[in-house]
């Protein structure tokens, strides 16, 4: 896998998001005004970034401002070291907060400090953990923006919450568009039954975020999932910053 291009056509945030959502191992070189940043992805996580003498998360935050320049994405390149532990969605979240122009719309009002962002994510996770205790056959849950970026997740099973978030966002967007075009009303929830599981997606008020819940089919109940999701969507909405 290889891709070259210009940052005018594809923003760094998008490159990071797509590479991570596709769970790639890759190297991304970005050139801008004589500087070169190199990012390394390992199975869908950003694990290292360097820019001159700098390394780590701060490189990401610095280069997210670059709007002009060239990029070269090469697959299969292993990272020489690991200087980043933050999840890719966390990096983009903090990066968006630091940018003057928010290319990624996230909080309704931006938190004052990085610490507040972390506290908010923790609050959401605590609510999801509690929700997990109430859902029969619970596997995982996620609070996600309609851009597919995961705000918080909680999982009991071997489920990748960021992959699930991105996939569920695509599905609910398509369902929402379909329902809208058909004039079939305002969507409340979408429930998918598979061989092994129930997957429920419910919008938070305002439809900028959704709550996704997965439950094991054998032990889960649709009525229980819907009821609990209704209750917890209200709690999550109340926990959003004003």
């Amino acid at each position, binding site marked *: 896998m290889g891709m070259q291009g210009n940052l005018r056509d594809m923003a760094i945030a998008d490159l990071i998001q797509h590479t991570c959502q596709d769970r790639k191992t890759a190297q991304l070189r970005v050139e801008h005004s004589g500087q070169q940043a190199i990012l390394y992805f390992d199975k869908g996580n950003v694990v290292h970034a360097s820019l001159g003498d700098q390394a780590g998360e701060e490189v990401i935050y610095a280069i997210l401002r670059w709007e002009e320049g060239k990029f070269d994405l090469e697959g299969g390149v292993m990272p020489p070291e690991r200087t980043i532990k933050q999840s890719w969605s966390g990096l983009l979240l903090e990066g968006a907060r630091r940018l003057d122009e928010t290319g990624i719309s996230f909080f309704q009002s931006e938190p004052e400090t990085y610490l507040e962002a972390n506290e908010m994510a923790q609050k959401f996770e605590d609510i999801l953990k509690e929700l997990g205790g109430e859902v029969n056959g619970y596997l995982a849950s996620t609070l996600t923006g309609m851009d597919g970026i995961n705000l918080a997740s909680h999982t009991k099973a071997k489920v990748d919450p960021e992959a699930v978030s991105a996939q569920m966002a695509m*599905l609910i967007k398509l369902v929402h568009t*379909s*329902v809208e075009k058909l004039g079939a*009303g305002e969507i409340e929830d979408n429930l998918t039954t598979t061989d092994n*599981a129930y997957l429920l997606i419910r919008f938070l008020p305002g439809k900028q975020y959704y709550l996704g819940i997965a439950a094991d089919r054998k032990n889960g109940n649709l009525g229980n999932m819907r009821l609990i999701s209704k209750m917890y969507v209200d709690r999550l909405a109340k926990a959003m910053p004003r």
Partner: protein
Amino acid sequence: MNKLEQLIYQFRSELGADFISTDVVGMDGLSIAGGSIDPSFNSTDASARFAMVMKLADKVSEKVSLGKVDDNLVTTDKAYIISRFLGNGSYYWGVAASRNATLGNIRMMMNEYADQLWDAIPR
């Protein structure tokens, strides 16, 4: 009336006043039987759109290792829209019903009719 249309008619009658629309649809989005009694609900459009929804739902489920999709149920403030794969997944069956309908009951009925509908599809 062929067997497929008979079964659809039977199902419609069981659903009664809550029925809005039903279609048996190929995964190309084209309906092979069914229709809508509500002129404001475009069942041709719905068939095509929900074929895409079912394809995506199946892809999503596979990517997150949750198995093959059986059905997808959308609840809106006006209606229930239920889509269920038939047989080997080369067709799906879509039903739209008013919010007055008993959802669990529709799901059960669809489970019961699904095999018969699959057998009745001309192949």
